[in-house]
């Protein structure tokens, strides 16, 4: 979808020419988010701006959908690519609607079609069209402004989006929210996105691919999990942080680590019956299930019991459950919070699906380290 082929940019300075981008090769498939990541001055923004030719490459080619972008008129090219910048850049003299409709109007859409599109996009970024269409940018909060910025970039439904640290100036709480919203939106729209960031967590959260730059060179280009599990060199290992394995936790869903070894017993069972089941399974605990299949409590193995005691009398409350779609970071955090080494997992309907254990998670994360070719 987007292919950078030996893309190079040399800037002439007083002390000679500097390579801001040095033979960059990246291929991003349709519908993927590629994060360009690196410290400031590493060439990530230069690379991004060469794609819509705000910066003219010194050499190398850019292909979008297989077509060489040099074949386009730069103005036409830019109208077919969505562009979001950190400073948002909403035009203060225009209403929200006029801002969103800039590209559609440049492309010659008629007013009613553009108006409908603006309302549709506002709803898409979770702003009420009736309330916001006629407002001016200065009447909006920073988060609202960047939502409009994203809507404006999507206005003419371009297949490609370029985003230059779009959420960098938003406060951390709103940034999380807007990142999640954008992820949801992206799952529906399947744009091909080039996204500049210097925030490793943001990259791990959003990216399908990550390209890490240093001093104009592309150091590593891979999936987030591979970059975190197998950083290509010390610079990258350093850049993604010593806690990179912890960062991988948010890439893995609970469902991947679920074990179904724990025995299930009913709340109405007698303790003898429950003990028999547990002995048969050989686990250290059993999960007590209610009639609807929801995990209700847990029962420790061993321990003395008198005849006639029910499971209900001896079982303990579960410290908490996680759903199959949660990421492992949420699960581990919950484990640490309650000082437990396992958690019950439920599906969306709340039915018991199995357990995750700290050992299981450790094993799972270890697997890719032992993958072929790993150091």
């Amino acid at each position, binding site marked *: 979808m987007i292919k950078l082929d030996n893309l190079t940019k040399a800037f002439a300075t007083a002390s000679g020419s500097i390579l801001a981008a040095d033979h960059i090769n990246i291929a991003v498939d349709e519908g993927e988010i590629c994060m360009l990541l690196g410290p400031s001055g590493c060439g990530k923004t230069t690379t991004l701006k060469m794609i819509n030719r705000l910066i003219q490459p010194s050499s190398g080619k850019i292909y979008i959908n297989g077509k060489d972008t040099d074949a386009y008129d730069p103005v036409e090219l830019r109208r077919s690519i969505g562009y979001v*910048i950190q400073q948002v850049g909403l035009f*203060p003299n225009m209403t929200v609607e006029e801002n969103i409709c*800039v*590209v559609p109007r440049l492309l010659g859409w008629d007013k009613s079609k553009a108006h409908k599109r603006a309302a549709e996009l506002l709803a898409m970024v979770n702003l009420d069209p009736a309330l916001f269409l006629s407002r001016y940018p*200065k009447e909006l909060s920073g988060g609202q402004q960047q939502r409009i910025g994203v809507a404006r970039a999507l206005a003419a439904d371009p297949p490609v989006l*370029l985003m230059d640290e779009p959420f960098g100036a938003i406060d951390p709480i709103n940034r999380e929210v807007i990142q999640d919203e954008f992820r949801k939106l992206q799952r529906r729209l399947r744009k091909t996105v080039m996204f500049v960031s210097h925030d490793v967590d943001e990259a791990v959260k959003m990216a399908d691919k990550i390209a890490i730059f240093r001093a104009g060179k592309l150091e590593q280009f891979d999936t987030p999990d591979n970059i975190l599990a197998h950083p290509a060199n010390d610079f990258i290992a350093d850049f993604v942080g010593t806690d990179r394995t912890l960062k991988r936790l948010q890439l893995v869903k609970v469902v991947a680590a679920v074990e179904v070894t724990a025995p299930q017993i009913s709340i109405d069972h007698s303790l003898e019956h429950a003990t028999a089941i547990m002995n048969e399974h050989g686990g250290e605990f059993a999960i007590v299930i209610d009639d609807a299949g929801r995990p209700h409590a847990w029962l420790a193995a061993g321990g003395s019991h008198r005849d006639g005691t029910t499971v209900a009398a001896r079982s303990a409350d579960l410290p908490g459950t996680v759903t199959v779609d949660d990421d492992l970071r949420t699960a581990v955090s919950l484990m640490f919070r309650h000082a437990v080494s396992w958690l019950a997992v439920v599906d969306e309907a709340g039915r018991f699906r199995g357990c995750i254990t700290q050992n299981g998670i450790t094993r799972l994360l270890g697997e890719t380290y032992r993958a072929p070719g790993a150091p």
Partner: protein
Amino acid sequence: MEVLDFIFGNLSVLADRTLEHLSIVGVAVGLAILTGVPIGIAITQNRRAADAVLYVASMIMTIPSIALFGVMIPVLSLVGHGIGYLPAVIAVLLYSQLPIIRNTYTAITNVDPALREAARGMGMTAIQRLARVEIPIALPVIMAGIRVAVVMNIGITAIAAYIGAGGLGTFISRGISQTDSRQLITGAIAVSLLAIVADYTLLWVQHVLTPRGTRG
């Protein structure tokens, strides 16, 4: 009392002189807008050109008006207009350049670079960027320059009465030569009032032209 009697006795003359005055300032500043705004925009493209143009415009401002009128007499005599309306208009046109060019230049260069980048990245041509973003945002400051030019030149035009351009300055020059304080005071008050009224009118125009989203 004498002054009031004079004013009410010469209302129609006063009105004629006011119109003459306005015609000189209006035509000259109008032409100055047509030249100064494009020049102000053009020099945003080149720093050295901007410095040179603003330097020349500032130099013109330092020439005393009475000297400028004097210099123009022999030059414009060649085309038969050494005195009167034409030199007055040319002088006002020249004096208006600095505030208009400088404010246009400053306003356009002060447009937030992020807006320029967004406009460029979205596929606006240079002309579209100027027409849809830069000029609308710069308009209040450009208008402020025009206001300065108008108010300042209402004063300068009063002096143009000495080269026979007419206008409210006629009352002042006659008042001096005839030691007639009634005419002198009438002229002075009329020129001041005209300047104040013009200033407020243009302030209102400036407000109307300011895009709603950028109003304070």
